[in-house]
């Protein structure tokens, strides 16, 4: 929306459940598919790659079925993986018999400690203005013009930004500078959305908290099975096996009005990719399976639920200011809450007011005769 900061998604994981990279890959591939199909506000994507090589991501998108032409047109990768500190510029290059072709949509970035330069490079890639400087050696002029016009499109076209590992960026620079970079990206008119991955256990808790504050959505990946310190190594390996390809995804979404929505899903990783299932489905299935299969009904119908709700409990006040009168069997019927009709089975004690013509039962409680604190042991007459 105009005048609003771009939405930002944090994906966070930990060593206990390290599926964050797979979830990031899944989200990235979906985002690129949406951009390629024209279903997204963004016309292109700038991927800042710290953790994995550009070749990995290009292969990922190919495997996910995104057309290579769309990838060339819509995706720009800022390669902060191959040479983040510029060492390769200071040592003689590796001479091999084969020289790997440089991809047109990959730009190498060698100043990972300079966040201003990083910001400028991201924006330049997104706008496509300095593209010719970054890839002049690899493209001929006609290809370059084609790529630029396809990526930038209209003047106000927007692009999405994905940072594959903020934890790497935090190694090169400090938290305030990274938070500042993220804020500048969010407030840029041409940024449509930002997504980043962070490994929460590589930093202090305040880092995750600070980045959560600048995000509109935080998706955190938690282990399915909890680990205890007393587990033996064999139990540990079973626990590791369980948590290696399954996890819980907890999503916290901040709405504009301040309301926070919480969602939870389960995810598991297979050969194709990440699959999500609702937590609720599995719980209700589990609950259904716990009920024994019998020929009578163990559950209440709606009518029965309503009737049960109407029952007045003897020790519960009804909230209408009346004094609670509890019938304990010692007082007369006239002193207690009136009963609609006297029945043969109801315990009626002496000095009852009896309607003429109706039978009566006189009942004397044995316990009235008993002296309190009697020393008599009721088991004394037992003869075993």
């Amino acid at each position, binding site marked *: 929306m105009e005048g609003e900061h771009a939405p930002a998604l944090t994906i966070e994981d930990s060593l206990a459940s390290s599926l964050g990279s797979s979830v990031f890959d899944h989200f990235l591939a979906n985002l690129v598919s949406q951009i390629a199909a024209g279903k997204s506000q963004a016309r292109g994507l700038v991927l800042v790659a710290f953790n994995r090589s550009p070749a990995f991501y290009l292969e990922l998108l190919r495997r996910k079925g995104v057309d290579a032409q769309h990838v060339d047109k819509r995706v720009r990768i800022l390669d902060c993986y191959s040479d983040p*500190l510029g060492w390769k510029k200071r040592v003689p290059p*590796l001479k*091999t*018999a084969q020289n790997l072709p440089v991809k047109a949509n990959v730009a190498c970035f060698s100043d990972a400690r300079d966040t201003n330069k990083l910001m400028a490079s991201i924006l330049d890639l997104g706008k496509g203005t300095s593209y010719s400087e970054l890839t002049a050696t690899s493209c001929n002029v006609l290809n370059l013009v084609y790529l630029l016009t396809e990526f930038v499109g209209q003047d106000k076209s927007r692009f999405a930004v994905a940072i594959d590992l903020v934890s790497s960026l935090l190694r090169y620079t400090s938290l305030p500078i990274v938070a500042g970079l993220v804020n500048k990206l969010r407030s840029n008119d041409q940024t449509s959305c930002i997504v980043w991955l962070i490994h929460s256990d590589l930093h202090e808790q305040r880092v995750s908290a600070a980045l959560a504050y600048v995000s509109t959505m935080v998706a955190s990946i938690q282990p399915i099975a909890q680990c205890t310190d007393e587990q033996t190594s064999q139990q540990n*390996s079973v626990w590791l*096996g369980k948590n290696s*390809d399954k996890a819980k995804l907890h999503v916290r979404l901040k709405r504009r009005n301040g309301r926070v929505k919480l969602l939870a899903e389960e995810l598991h990783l297979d050969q194709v990719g990440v699959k999500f299932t609702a937590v609720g489905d599995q719980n209700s299935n589990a609950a259904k399976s716990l009920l024994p299969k019998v020929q009578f009904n163990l559950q209440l119908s709606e009518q029965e639920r309503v009737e049960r709700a109407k029952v007045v409990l003897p020790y519960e006040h009804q909230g209408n200011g009346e004094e609670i009168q509890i019938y304990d069997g010692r007082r007369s019927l006239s002193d207690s809450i009136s009963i609609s009709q006297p029945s043969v089975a109801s315990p009626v004690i002496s000095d009852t007011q009896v309607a003429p013509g109706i039978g009566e039962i006189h009942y004397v409680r044995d316990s009235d005769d008993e002296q309190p604190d009697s020393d008599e042991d009721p088991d004394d007459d037992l003869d075993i």
Partner: protein
Amino acid sequence: MNPSFSSPTTNLLDEALGIGCTGSVPWRIALVQDCVEASGAFLLHHLLKRSLSAEAAGAVVFLGLAQPFSHYDRVLRKMGCNLSLQRNKNKLHFIDLLDLEFLVAGGTDQNAIEDGFMNLYNRILRFIEANNLMHNNGGWIRIIIDDISLLEIAAQGSSSHTFDFLQYCATLTSELDCSLLILNHGDIYSSEEDQCLLSHLDYLSDVVIKAETLSTGIAVDVHGQLTIINKRALGELGWSSSKVYNFQFKLKENAVEFFYPGTKF
């Protein structure tokens, strides 16, 4: 040289790590994490021997910070592998870093440490280049670091610079047919801040091998246990599920025996 040790026979460790008959591996980065009671050095020796066996089609760059070359030569000779011969044949490039001052030779400021690591990276690059040109780009390269905690000491305790160097070694594994094997000690980090390097290494690695003692204590026939977490079990980057292996080991004079718990007798 005992012929039965020169030809590699498959054992549980080789199966768990997916080591092929040519010595190639499906993973890029492996971390060996040991402790005082269960040293993981034997794993480096075993993998070094497998990498230099007759069928192996690659070369090894060994960063020796813990022991001198003569130590490894003696140990591997007992296992049936002649390191001096392999070095002469350019199959092994041993970088002697026993003197931990190598990074601060140009001064102790941060730039000097980074320059020192860059020079080390350059040395590795030059060996790879020479090997590639000699064998026309054939064969794999394995970089073995013994051990990373000493590299951190050499960097005056700077885990950031150490990890920068590791990051550059990791890029070699994705650009070339190169794998990286790192030994680290899991029990020397006390505070949470210090454990940062451990966690970084865990995230970076495709395979983590933990050497531990038995929870039941010391035994005569079992010297410890290994837990191997293979995050890329099926060999394709990012699309495999993890496999966890747990078995025990016994160190013998010339070799190591691996077996599942309870199958020793």
